[in-house]
């Protein structure tokens, strides 16, 4: 690590101004990913702007029923918040499926969304990686890519996004709130992360110097049955091989609200629009779920060594869809 300047601004405005004065800076909050990347040499900022103490650590209900979760809330506090647990169980479950108790006590809402891929080629300075060093090539393409993407990848990058939180936010139609020199703007969470295309070095739509100030959870999804399920190589404390976030409402046996997002399959959370379109208004039956999930997954483009992800994702999705469907006795 090279010598580091350190600034601790007292407000969001001061933070953004500090970045404008130090364009090579990085914002630091929990540090669980950034400090690790600095140790690996993947990140080498000259200045850190510590936003960890900014007053963005609350959950507040806005007049229209939107729940606003602050950017510097620790993942453990967001997951445990009664309003989040009661209204958006998929969000709490996704957070709790990620990392460890120690890491969730440090990692923040904003940092979770900005964490980088855990692709081993990205983390190893001796290997080619277009995300870390544009133009150097992709070592994973013909290398070790069992954990990599089956949707939306390009010849330039086949990495996956590691966030569980982002998958739940995509399924909830949440928005990411940003603040920059031009003021506040919001981006739908499902569009916040990018596909790699020719520019895998850009993970998200965030602009240089912009700060995530919070995420907005829509009132329309509050209280709708939802759940997250994640498959990983060990029972706990590992990144997703595949995961699924589902928001499902069934009335009189018919699907009248459905959102399904996969994690671990792409460079961003993968909303299964083909599944959703097929299910909306359809009978909520195991057969309908199976057909609708197949419509999405038959479009997958698995790599040499990750074809297993397609049936894995299918099984996860069907399990959660069936679990969230009320049985006749409880209709």
């Amino acid at each position, binding site marked *: 690590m090279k010598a580091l300047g350190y600034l601790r601004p007292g407000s969001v405005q001061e933070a953004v101004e500090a970045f404008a004065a130090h364009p090579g800076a990085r914002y630091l909050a929990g540090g*669980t990913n950034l400090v690790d990347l600095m140790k690996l040499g993947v990140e080498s900022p000259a200045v850190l702007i510590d936003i960890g103490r900014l007053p963005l650590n609350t959950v507040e209900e806005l007049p229209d029923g939107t729940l606003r979760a602050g950017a510097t809330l620790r993942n453990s506090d967001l997951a445990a918040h009664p309003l989040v647990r009661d209204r958006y169980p998929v969000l709490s479950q996704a957070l709790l499926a990620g990392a460890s108790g*120690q890491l969730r006590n440090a990692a923040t809402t904003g940092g979770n969304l900005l964490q980088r891929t855990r692709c081993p080629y990205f983390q190893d300075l001796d290997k080619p990686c277009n995300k870390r060093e544009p133009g150097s090539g992709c070592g994973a393409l013909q290398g070790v890519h069992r954990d990599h993407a089956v949707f939306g990848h390009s010849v330039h990058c086949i990495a996956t996004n590691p966030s569980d939180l982002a998958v739940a936010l995509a399924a909830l139609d949440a928005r990411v709130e940003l603040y920059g020199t031009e003021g506040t703007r919001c981006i739908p969470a499902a569009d916040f992360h990018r596909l790699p295309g020719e520019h895998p070095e850009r993970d998200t739509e965030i602009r240089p110097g912009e700060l995530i100030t919070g995420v907005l959870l829509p009132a329309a999804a509050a209280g709708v049955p939802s759940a997250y399920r994640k498959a990983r190589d060990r029972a706990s*404390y590992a990144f997703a091989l595949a995961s699924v976030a589902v928001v499902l409402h069934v009335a009189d046996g018919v699907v009248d609200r459905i959102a399904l997002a996969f994690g671990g399959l792409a460079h961003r959370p993968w909303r299964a629009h083909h599944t959703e379109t097929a299910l909306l208004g359809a009978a909520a039956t195991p057969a309908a779920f199976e057909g609708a999930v197949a419509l999405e997954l038959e479009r997958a483009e698995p790599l040499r060594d990750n074809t297993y992800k397609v049936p894995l994702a299918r099984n996860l999705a069907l399990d959660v869809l069936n679990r969230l469907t009320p049985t006749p006795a409880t209709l």
Partner: protein
Amino acid sequence: MTSENQLDPHSEITLRVNGKPHTLLVDHRRVLLDLLREDLDLTGSKKGCDHGQCGACTVLVGGRRLNSCLVLAVTLDGGEVTTIEGLIGDGEEPHPLQQAFLDRDAFQCGYCTPGQICSAVGMIAEAAAGHPSHVTDPAAPSGRPVPLDRPEIRERLSGNLCRCGAYPRIVEAVEDVIR
């Protein structure tokens, strides 16, 4: 505005460690783990992976468990840290979890043990404060203490690896204390 090369790479911070106040000039790159071990000679906290993957460096910051290898010391200015050395307090008696680990022989090489114990202290407080885990029934009422059965203990301590494989006795030691 100052330019980057004018920013000092050091800061003076105050930190209360195991009840004792310290004023330290820290390099901004200094992580808490290295500060504890190298500047304060508190070598109970262990460096395993140094990347937040093993939990051997777990300490309590403001009462919450963290991986001290991933926390830059400068960010903790004014804060309060408890390490394995501080769990005993002023007395001679070991902390109940330390005693339980001894009674249950809950270690072999012992390298992960300080992290396991600090993690367990933090974890018990989290469950008492109503924090759910991955294995908590989603239908359980929020805001109430979560009972710690074996699956809960295992899941909540999954951030602490033991390469000797002493897990069954670690779980038993924690059970002894929460009973």
